[in-house]
């Protein structure tokens, strides 16, 4: 193969990775819209058991995704690869990353929402791509040009602006604990991306994703949901039937399938174009969410939403930059 052939092959590989990262954001925004539909069905509309509803929703969503990815890997003849990966050192890195994402990330996010409210929790947790980029710089020696940093900052700033909810004014006794938990969530999601990307050097993205979903299901069903029911003093046996019979469960299962497609694109793109680029483009879900909401849900486009969207779009253009210049993702020999 001649040098121009090799360069052309790398360029088309990079374009594919960038498109997958963009696609992951587009599909993820649809996931949010589908999840939103489940809240029209009881008991998913109950505000008195909001914590349990949120954790059970996430659990049902991830159970469906875990079943589908396991089935997909079985159909592709990769199921033994799952066992081989679990027994290997990179497989253990995937497990650590999954635990960081599920426990610190999602656990911190849910706790932050409860204690500090969405006005503060959402913008803080949106910082996770910045946390990931900083970790990737040191741990993976990722090559991030100045234009990439500016793009990342714009993407994160735009997403913070789009997700901003005016504070309600009341800050409870545990408000600062809530802020701390939101910070922990950003740290959890950021480090999850770096841990899993490092492991995906030696583990197929489809297998890493399968391990992530299985860990997540264990976290929700084995720890989060039982803890929430104890905290709210609710017998799980009393409410589990309500959840299982609800039409909202079918919608959450559909959302799980949508989310799986998004995560598959995201994991593959992190492996192909690096954590910082993939996360910056993935966070564009905030932009696509606005677009889809305006088109299909008749959501009013406010000035803040438009400005935030323009900032995200500018950031994404800077992150994509000139793919011809991305020949090596890391500052190594």
């Amino acid at each position, binding site marked *: 193969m001649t040098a121009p052939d*090799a360069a052309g092959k790398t360029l088309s*590989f990079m374009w594919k990775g960038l498109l997958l990262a963009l696609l992951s954001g587009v599909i993820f925004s649809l996931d949010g819209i589908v999840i939103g539909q489940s809240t029209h069905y009881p008991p998913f509309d109950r505000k008195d058991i909001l914590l349990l509803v949120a954790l059970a929703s996430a659990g049902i969503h991830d159970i469906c995704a875990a079943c589908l990815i396991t089935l997909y890997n079985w159909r592709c003849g990769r199921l033994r690869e799952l066992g*081989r990966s679990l027994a290997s050192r990179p497989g253990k890195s995937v497990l650590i990353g999954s635990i960081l994402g599920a426990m610190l990330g999602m656990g911190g996010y849910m706790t932050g929402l409860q204690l500090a409210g969405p006005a503060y929790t959402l913008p803080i947790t949106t910082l996770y791509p910045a946390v990931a980029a900083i970790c990737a710089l040191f741990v993976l*020696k990722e090559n991030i040009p100045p234009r990439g940093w500016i793009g990342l900052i714009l993407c994160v700033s735009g997403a913070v602006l789009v997700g901003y909810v005016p504070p309600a004014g009341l800050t409870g006794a545990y408000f600062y604990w809530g802020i701390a938990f939101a910070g922990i969530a950003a740290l959890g999601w950021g480090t999850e991306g770096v841990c899993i990307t490092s492991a995906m*050097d030696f*583990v197929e993205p489809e297998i890493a994703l399968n391990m992530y979903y299985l860990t997540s299901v264990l976290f929700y069903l084995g720890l989060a949901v039982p803890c929430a029911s104890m905290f709210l003093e609710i017998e799980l046996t009393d409410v589990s039937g309500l959840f299982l019979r609800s039409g909202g469960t079918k919608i959450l299962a559909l959302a799980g399938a949508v989310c799986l497609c998004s995560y598959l694109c995201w994991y593959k793109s992190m492996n192909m174009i690096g954590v910082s680029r993939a996360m910056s483009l993935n966070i564009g879900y905030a932009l696509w969410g606005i677009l889809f909401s305006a088109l299909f849900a008749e959501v009013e486009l406010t000035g803040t939403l438009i400005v935030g969207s323009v900032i995200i779009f500018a950031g994404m253009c800077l992150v994509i930059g000139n793919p011809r210049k991305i020949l*090596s*993702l890391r500052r*190594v020999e």
Partner: protein
Amino acid sequence: MTMPVKPPFRLAVAALFLDGDRLSPEEVLASLAGEYARAGFFGPKVVALCLQCLSVNGILREETGRYLLTGYGRERVRKNLGG
């Protein structure tokens, strides 16, 4: 090096280069056919994609259609085979 179970496919591909060999995708495919041919996913496309991913992430380096392990890649492969 002996391992109780086969390593994940990508790690097995990278480990082929530990002897300092420069291998083409066809040679990688032939070298792993004995161990992984029964896996449904095994084939030239998956091997080519795997080599490309290892290459952009700095584990391998491509020179005129053949791949070789980088210093960083050697360190990472040894570390990951160890556990």
